[in-house]
């Protein structure tokens, strides 16, 4: 390093390389990403969030929710379960065979061989693909992938899990009333929750001629004084709409799984 110019060139080469790798290449690879189709159903994914939910993302950003919550489910791998759907003509043989086989948590090869064995004696089976990992099924069904965030700006992946992951919270806890109660007084619905209450997203006001239809139905120890009610502000409603819109629960090409079957014995509601 004889002069300033050579230092400049050295730094330029080093940083330029990583700029091409981690800025330019992802922009080229992901910048033109389009909607994809859901496996099995063939619907388009993801769809744009509703207006309220889009505004709710801004409430999420403004309050720094990402300091405590991630929106990315991790997955270690997948296992295969072999599920018998019909016993066929020799139910006794099939059930004897099944009792000797391991049918859950298999590798692809083991699942295929079990599949073959049962099919040869006349049983009908399905192979289910099940993602594994410590976030599954606690916080989601499958790992988060780039497509899940196609319409988000800012993308709030987060880096710390002081609270739970929220990538699939809309599917896990899909009730708007529950979300609002939880925002106002987390301890009223989750015992020992360490989340701070967000009272400033709500209004405590005197009950007028009739109670507001939006008023929260709080348990006694969290309720406002008699004659008062707690009403969510627009921001709280938008935030709750955003939380409900967070769903990563459809199988995709890059994150496949076998969706839970709706049992046909239950009458449709």
């Amino acid at each position, binding site marked *: 390093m004889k002069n*300033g110019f050579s230092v400049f060139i*050295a730094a330029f080469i080093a940083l330029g390389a*990583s*700029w091409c790798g981690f800025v330019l290449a992802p922009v080229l690879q992901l910048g033109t990403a389009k909607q994809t189709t859901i496996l099995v159903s063939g619907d388009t994914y993801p769809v744009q969030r509703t207006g309220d939910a889009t505004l709710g993302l801004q409430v999420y950003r403004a309050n*720094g929710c990402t300091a405590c919550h991630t929106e*990315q489910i991790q997955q*270690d791998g997948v296992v295969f379960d072999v599920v018998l759907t019909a016993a066929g003509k020799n139910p006794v043989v099939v059930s004897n065979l099944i009792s000797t086989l391991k049918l859950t948590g298999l590798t692809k090869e083991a699942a295929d061989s079990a599949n073959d064995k049962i099919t040869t004696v006349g049983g009908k089976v399905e192979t289910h693909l099940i993602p594994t990992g410590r976030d599954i099924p606690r916080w989601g069904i499958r790992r988060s992938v780039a497509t899940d965030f196609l319409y988000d700006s*800012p993308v709030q992946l987060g880096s710390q899990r002081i609270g739970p992951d929220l990538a699939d919270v809309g599917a896990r806890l899909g009730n708007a009333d529950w979300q609002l109660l939880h925002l106002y007084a987390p301890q009223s619905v989750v015992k020992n929750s360490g989340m701070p209450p967000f009272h400033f997203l709500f209004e405590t006001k005197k009950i007028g001629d009739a109670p507001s239809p939006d008023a929260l139905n709080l348990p006694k120890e969290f309720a406002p004084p008699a004659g008062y009610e707690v009403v969510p502000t627009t921001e709280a409603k938008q935030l709750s709409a955003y939380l409900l819109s967070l769903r990563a629960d459809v199988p995709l090409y890059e994150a496949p799984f076998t969706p839970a079957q709706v049992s046909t014995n239950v009458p449709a509601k």
Partner: protein
Amino acid sequence: MNVNEISQQKIDTSCRVPLLALFGGAALWLVVGLTLSIIASLTFHAPQMFADCPLLTYGHAQPAANDAILYGFCIPAALGVMLWIFARLSQTELVLPLVPVVAANIWHLGVFIGLIAILIGDSTGFMWLEFPRGSSVLLFAAFLLIAVSAVATFGQRKERELYPSHWFLLAALLWFPWIYSTANLLIESGHPVRGVTQAVIGWWFADNLIFVWLALVGLGVAFYFLPKLGERPLQSSHFALFVFWTLMIFGTWCGIPQGAPVPAWLPALSSVASGLTIVPLIVIAIIFVKTVCGANTNCKGGPFCYIKFGTVAFLLSTLMLISSGCPHFSKIVEFTWFGPAQTQLQILGFFAIVICGAIYELLPRVMGFELPFPKFVRVQHWLFMLGIILLVVSLAIGGIEQGLKNYSLESSLPFLRVSTTGLLFLLLGSLLFAANIFVMTFKWKLALIKSVVAYIKSPLETAEVKS
């Protein structure tokens, strides 16, 4: 006093006003940042505390604290130290001394606007890039102005041969504008890039700022002061050159977390790069040991101690960074307190301490008089050391515990309480630092006013005599 000393004094004096402008604001932001950090960590002691006060909830106070310490303290204080080192190494007075004075004020105004914006909910939502557009533009402009003065001073150097610190500091001058403009233009502009690309660029920026930029500047400063204070030449500049290249080449590719929802080649590449970072790390350790062990300086909590502690903290924080790039270990510690522990060790344990040590060494020379509270230097060293050990060790162990117990908050709460104690020690230390800087500035201004008053009075008196 010989000619040499007089010229040395002239060089130091030429830096006086810009350095005071940079250090004064920096000391204030350090106190503000650590106070906000403590406020944020109170959430873990009493979650209900700020239920009705949106400004100080964890999600507002924590990013504000991080940015106040990094953008408010670390960068401007480091720029001040850099200007002085450039002037000293060039053996020439600071070129364009007024430019950094203006720049320092623009920078601190930008930080002020940015912090207010974060607190009132106007943050951009990207870690380390929370400042809104207006404030980022101010920071960018201020940095360029200071870089102009630094490069102009560098151009005037009498000794044409470069010293290792030159490489590191010059590279840092190019690094920051590049990464800061890229990240802001692609993430915060009116047409941001789409989807997870935003996150990838955010991670690239954060790694290049917190790991590479801080390392370049911190090591550049350490490689200047360690030989100077230890009265023993740097062992050796060939090793330093090797560190310079490998640190830049490998360091700049770290930062994409394992398991991120992005194309798999990105985290894989990052994992390899962070593994290779062990190469410059070993060489830095060799340089450090060879340079420091032969030194016969007894530091007694003085600047030499600061810089020694800081360099060791850098070695440890980089080891933590490398370990969290290992696929197996990262599965345990990803998303836990281990990450913040590493960042705090890098920012406070390494960078802040090296810079504080450098400031304590150079400020008396620049001002031409001794520190008002010289004993505080030693006390602050112990407070910082204790604070950083409490903060980082408790967060790191708490993080591993949290990871092993499936992210349960209860398992990490006792560790978080210890970390708050660590922050309190750091805050006390930063108050001592601020006291030294502010009293020094006040004394200098008082002397300035006195001399101005004397100057105004003196011609009047002579006029009276004449008449």
